[in-house]
């Protein structure tokens, strides 16, 4: 599309070529010299050394200076190439990637969620990388890009898939037992196909101005849209809810109305929601009145809106359940969730083997206290989801019941 944009692949491959080239020459030279000397000056031919020269200043200076020049060349190209990887071309499509034990999920500006990274071929894509638990690393070998996903730190990569096709995504930072299974793909579509996919259902929430603003101002870096707890309180169900806040050290309870929301954005230190750090920057002077209204409108809509993707299904993706459990009956790190409801399972409880039926109570229990009943034949490695709010647990259980 944009002819100025050299792909990351080409940039990096040139540096590889340069360094490998010099290295190969040096290596060949050294090996050849070594072999030649060993043969030529063998003790059988030369019972005594024919020289006892132990230094030669000129020679030593030469072989210090030449490598110095060569490595400076390598440094230069290495750095220049790195800059190209860091500087995102303008107009890149932004996708948010979230790594968690042990899956990736991708979120688009219109709220669309996916476990594969769909991109339009020929257009630069910027991937913002996040992690919810431990370190991961977002790696696409085909495009020579990689960046760690660090909890509490946002970073990015960009790339440009020139040809439509499917490219592997790996997790490259060790993250536990299913590290090697934390893989996904880039699906590069033609721009037209991409547009179709992007506009197609199921769009989670109506993509609109308000949500775009939340992304632009970085709100969703700290506030979730789905009820999960991040640095700041979630936006889900925010409008009209009651809030326990600390105002100048005084506890009080407020309703999240327009006035409250505006104040929280412009001068967040005024009322601090209980249980959260006073970490939010003040947007006074950075946001226009119009944009502010737009966001408030969005909050209002959100409170009333119905999701097309059920909450349970969203959670399955967001919480990374699909990283270890398939929904199609295949065996993965953990047992498949297809038909899990009502199934007879053999478990180990307190060291004793039992067979029980997977009823609602059992499903709930497995989320909150996965180690209590360990399904036979699987390692006891499932993290607990006890920290999820109750309604989300219920939503998950409801959703599991539908997976027949």
């Amino acid at each position, binding site marked *: 599309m944009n002819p100025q944009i050299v792909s990351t692949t080409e940039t990096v491959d040139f540096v590889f070529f340069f360094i490998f080239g010099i290295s190969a020459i040096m290596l060949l030279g050294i090996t050849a010299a070594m072999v030649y000397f060993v043969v030529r000056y063998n003790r059988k031919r030369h019972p005594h050394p024919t020289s006892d020269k132990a230094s030669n200043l000129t020679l030593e200076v030469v072989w210090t200076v030449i490598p110095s020049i060569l490595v400076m060349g390598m440094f230069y190209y290495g750095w220049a190439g790195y800059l190209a990887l860091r500087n995102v071309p303008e107009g890149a499509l932004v996708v948010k990637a979230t790594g968690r034990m042990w899956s990736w999920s991708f979120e688009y500006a219109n709220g669309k969620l996916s476990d594969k990274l769909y991109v339009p071929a020929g257009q630069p894509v910027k991937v913002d990388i996040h992690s919810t638990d431990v370190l991961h690393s977002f790696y696409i070998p085909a495009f020579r890009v990689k960046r760690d996903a660090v909890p509490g730190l946002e970073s990015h990569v960009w790339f440009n898939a020139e040809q439509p096709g499917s490219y592997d995504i790996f997790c490259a930072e060790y993250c536990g037992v299913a590290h090697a299974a934390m893989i996904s793909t880039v699906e590069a579509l033609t721009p037209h196909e991409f547009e179709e996919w992007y506009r197609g259902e199921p769009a989670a929430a109506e993509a609109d101005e308000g949500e775009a603003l939340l992304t632009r101002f970085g709100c969703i870096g700290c506030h979730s849209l789905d009820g999960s707890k991040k640095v700041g309180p979630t936006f889900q169900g925010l409008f009209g809810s009651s809030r326990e806040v600390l105002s100048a050290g005084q506890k009080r309870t407020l309703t999240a109305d327009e006035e409250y929301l505006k104040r929280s954005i412009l001068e967040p230190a005024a009322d601090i929601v209980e*249980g959260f*750090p*006073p*970490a939010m920057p003040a947007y006074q002077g950075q946001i226009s009145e119009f944009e502010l209204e737009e966001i408030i409108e969005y909050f209002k809509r959100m409170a009333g809106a119905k999701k097309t993707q059920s909450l349970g299904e969203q959670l399955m993706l967001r919480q990374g359940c699909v990283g270890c459990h398939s929904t199609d009956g295949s065996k993965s790190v953990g047992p498949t969730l297809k038909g899990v409801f009502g199934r007879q399972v053999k478990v180990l409880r307190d060291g004793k083997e039992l067979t029980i039926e997977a009823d609602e109570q059992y499903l709930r229990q497995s989320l909150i206290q996965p180690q209590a009943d360990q399904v036979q034949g699987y390692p006891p490695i499932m993290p607990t989801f006890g920290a999820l709010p109750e309604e989300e647990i219920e939503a998950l259980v409801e959703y599991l019941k539908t997976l027949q």
Partner: protein
Amino acid sequence: MSEVHKDYAGAKFGMWLFLFTELLLFGGLFILYGVYLHRYPEEFVKAGGELNVVFGAVNTLVLLTSSLAVAMSITALQKGNRRLTLVLLAVTIASALIFLVNKYFEWSAKIHHGLYPDSPHLKELAPGESVFFGLYYVTTGLHGLHVVIGGALLAWVFVQVRSGRVHAEDFVALENSGLYWHLVDLIWIFIFPLYYLIL
């Protein structure tokens, strides 16, 4: 005691090398301190305000004085004054104990106020403050451990001096234990302003 010959300069050099490793051991914590102070200047000031300057200052005096006592004890021994050496060493060991008692009260007060690693109260504070207290406990804890080791070392030397095994002609054990004790003091010279005085 199989060594026939003793190399005093060598022994002292070895001790200094060991002190360097101790310095670098604390160095790791000072790196973290520097970085987090840079990141959370306000939180550090706020959290540092919770520490009791009086405790810190008193302990500084105690350690400085104990350092003086060890230093003088070496002179005393070199001059052949064993009694004075013993008295000065006793002063040092007593200082170590006072320091620890002081520290005990200081820590208990903090813990009483719910300020200890992983405490519910700490979790509610701003992130920078929690980091400050984390570092505070680790650093002063490690330092306290060194006070204990140093005190024990000096107590051992005390016995050696009293029994005459360490004397005016052979006092490298005293000198090296003294060096160790000064290191404990040195570290505190930095801990005190960095944790108690950042206001």
